[in-house]
């Protein structure tokens, strides 16, 4: 089973985690036009690449960011939100 390193709890089997999906920046709802908003709500970047994703360690409730090569399923690094530089 794949291992994933939770920044707080360390490496655990991926079955202990919940995958939310790729992080997407919400456009300002008051500025975005309908098309831009629909693009944000529905469209995804489905092509392989190194993506920033939201993952959640269920037993501890920790949300964190995973940078992962989705083609090789290879985790580059994980960190708490906002601590990217750390």
């Amino acid at each position, binding site marked *: 089973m794949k291992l994933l390193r939770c920044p707080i709890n360390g490496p655990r089997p991926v079955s202990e985690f919940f995958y939310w*999906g790729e992080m997407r920046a919400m456009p300002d709802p008051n500025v975005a036009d309908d098309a831009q908003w*629909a693009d944000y709500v*529905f469209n995804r970047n489905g092509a392989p690449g190194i*993506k920033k994703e939201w993952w959640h360690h269920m037993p501890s409730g920790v949300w964190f960011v995973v940078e992962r090569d989705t083609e090789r399923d290879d985790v580059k690094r994980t960190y708490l939100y906002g601590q990217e530089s750390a």
Partner: protein
Amino acid sequence: MPYRLLRFALSSKHPEPRMFRSHDSLKSSYDVVIIGAGGHGLAAAYYFARDHGITNIAVLEKGYIGGGNTGRNTTIIRSNYLTPEGVAFYDQSVKLWQDLSAEFDLNLFYSTRGHFTLAHTDSAMRTTRWRAEVNKHLGVDSEVVYADDVQKACPQMDITCAGNAPILGALYHAPGAIARHDAVAWGYGRGADQRGVEIHQKTEVLGIDVEAGEIKGVTTNRGYISTRKVLCAVAGSTPRITQMLYIRTPLYIHPLQAMVTEPMKPWLDPIFVSGSLHVYVSQSARGELVMGASLDPYEVQNTRSTFDFVEGLASHMLDMFPFLSNAKINRQWAGLADMTPDFAPIMGKTPVKGFYLDSGWGTWGFKATPVSGKTMSYTVAKDENHELIRGFTLSRFKDFKLTGEKGAASVGH
């Protein structure tokens, strides 16, 4: 012993011609380029040639014929969908399926087995009735049955599912069928090839050439082709192609895994699907149980296998069929499912003139092979979305007009 097998014994030399020609090089231009030599791409090529007289076509395949989800799915064919769009589309597909073997003169082992979608909760029973009523209204043979009917159809099954999820009833869809998946691609491939279509294996698309919003050509690892029409039928690889054109889609890619037992003497006639237990199973003509579960929980664009999948599916299989404890799993594998937010495909015209999508097949593309070929060839030939796919256009998302297949969300098989 059918007479037609005699000739093999009688002729000293193998009497079968080549199914598909091999081509040393690409031509400089084609009327239509189809990306993907899976069932969908080859079916489209076949109907282009047969129904629209378009034969100057290149089908480009990065790997080999039918090597993607066509050769990896669990071959279930049904039309018991929830929305009028879905039902009409798949019903047409099932009708086409039934005559394919004769049409190809190739036995696809299209086998009508009856299909049960099991319901373990009262909310699942509600969805079951919803689908049954919509199906009946649209002339599709589906009905709500109850636990004892399920037990009759499979006397050996533990309908309490080890007490974990007692079966309350099911959606019974008599036309539910299975078929020999690879042969479908071969049949369409041969039919297209015989009509002049060129199938190029080991040919990868590297770029697509667009000018003023119109398709001009395609760059491949074997050279440049000029064309004005490109049909993209590459399932899990669709985003790689649309990315080349800066077309945004809702497609996201998760692996879908499957596994198969060692052959055993036939005992399981119908196809069973359980949403709650994430199981779908049928027995192949070879005697293997072919099984699948739900999508992998996260995005991956390769076909690696996981052990979690086998553990979960094995456990739920034994809940339903405890007597399989000694049956052995021979092999597991995976395919890439191109999922959409409303569980309906994305087909037809796109913002780029001359570029057409046949995608969003998620976990249910195999059964749509004939009708997608028919409707996409029409759509490309006429540059007008076929009426059967008007509910499936890419534009429905920006218009917030989703197609409600999601209402019946369960294992999508």
